[in-house]
């Protein structure tokens, strides 16, 4: 959400900048093909917003952000090695009083890609970090006022997760029914801040107690 807001603010200022430079250009008087100030501004405006169109959709099972999370995101960098996802997850109530919705902001790093023939590729290592928040009045970012300052000293509403994993991609050929550019399947092994803190000071809590598996699929649009 914050990423979107920053993007919108950025576009707003870019828009103002463009309109200013365009005013100067039009003073030179290109009489052959004159793009009006308005047309140019709208073109840049559309182009700017075009940059924030998500490039893929993702669905992920488990991973500490709900049973099933759906979201979208953007890939960028020289080799599209960076991906930023915004996901919304559904968490059934199990033994608690309410069903819950979660929101995740996830940063992925995909340093290597290996091609397997023309249609397949494989990422031997992916890693990343994500922030998860849960929408429920049972949790707080900061303790409510009734507690002395710093009583618990952590936020029950916001979790930090880290993961490593692998990914396998099927590049869909042109002549086949083509709805997506490619489809990737991935798995991740992740943990969160509170688990790490628990394991760190105790021999009794092992690595297998704090690590968990999640599975996902990514649909690349363009």
């Amino acid at each position, binding site marked *: 959400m914050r990423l979107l807001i920053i993007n919108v603010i950025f576009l707003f200022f870019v828009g103002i900048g463009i309109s200013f430079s365009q005013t100067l250009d039009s003073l030179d008087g290109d009489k052959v093909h004159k793009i009006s100030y308005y047309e140019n501004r709208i073109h840049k405006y559309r182009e700017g917003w075009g940059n924030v169109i998500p490039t893929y959709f993702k669905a992920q*099972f*488990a*991973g*500490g*952000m*709900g*049973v099933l999370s759906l979201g979208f995101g953007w890939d960028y960098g020289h080799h599209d090695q960076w991906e930023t996802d915004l996901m919304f*997850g559904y*968490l059934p*109530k*199990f*033994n*608690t*009083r309410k069903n*819950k919705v*979660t929101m995740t902001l996830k940063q992925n790093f995909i340093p290597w890609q290996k091609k397997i023939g023309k249609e397949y590729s494989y990422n031997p290592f992916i890693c990343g970090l994500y922030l*998860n928040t*849960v929408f429920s009045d*049972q*949790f707080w970012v900061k303790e409510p006022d*009734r*507690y*002395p300052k710093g009583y*618990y000293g*952590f936020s*029950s509403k916001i*979790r930090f997760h880290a993961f490593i994993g692998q990914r396998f991609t099927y590049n869909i050929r042109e002549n086949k029914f083509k709805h997506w550019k490619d489809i990737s399947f991935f798995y991740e092994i*992740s943990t*969160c801040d*509170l*688990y790490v*803190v*628990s394991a760190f*000071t*105790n*021999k*009794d*809590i092992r690595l297998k*107690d704090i690590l*968990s*598996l*999640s599975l996902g699929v990514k649909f690349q649009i363009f």
Partner: protein
Amino acid sequence: MYTFVSCDIFDYHPYDGKIKGKTNVNAKNIERITESCKGLKEFKFAFISDTQRWYDETEDVVKDINSRQDIKFVIHGGDISDFGVTKEFLWQRDILERLNVPYVCCIGNHDCIGTGEDVFQKVFGNPNFAFTAGNIRFICLNTVALEYDYSNPIPNFDFIENEINYSDSNVEKTIFCMHCRPYDDQFNNNVAKAFEHYVLSCKHIQFCITGHIHRTEIIDLFGDGLMYYTCNCIGNREYYIFTIKDNGYEYEVVDY
């Protein structure tokens, strides 16, 4: 494939409330306690408290209690979890399950964070509960009022009143167990004196045992002769052993 399915390898959320293994622990263990202490007028029990995020120390206290043959049961004074995270309750339960004797758990303030109370209710049971061991009625109360609003009466006087009126010819004495004692930061201190009044109305009240403050303290809190025994946290490797005698009681602070 079997291990893939049977292992709990998927984590939906730290506060998901997904519980694997034994539930309703208190009620199941109370049956065992009542059975093993039937007719006894003299017996020993242990009181441990505040085991949150001290898994190694909890493991050690279990071993220490198991090395003694004279303990009939163990009472946990609350703060089983540190963050209210579901897994914390299960990790602690699994360690406490290694005790050779039955145990019961009171609720602590840390156990109420997030979905913690829901998980506590499922794994251990109602935060207000009572049981009979030998000739003693143990009344275990939820006293962490700061975690609730006025829609939840903490401490629950109706529950205490029911216990005052509880009639069982085997019961001759009463002991109270709770996480926070009156005048702690968590207690509803507006009713501290009323609470004491109710406690004193119970049949031959012996003493109260509490936790929360992470140090051993033995104090006549209201100057009325009723002793409050506050148990150290397990991180400081101390716990109590109480010996109930036909005529009075003894206590021991165990350093392990």
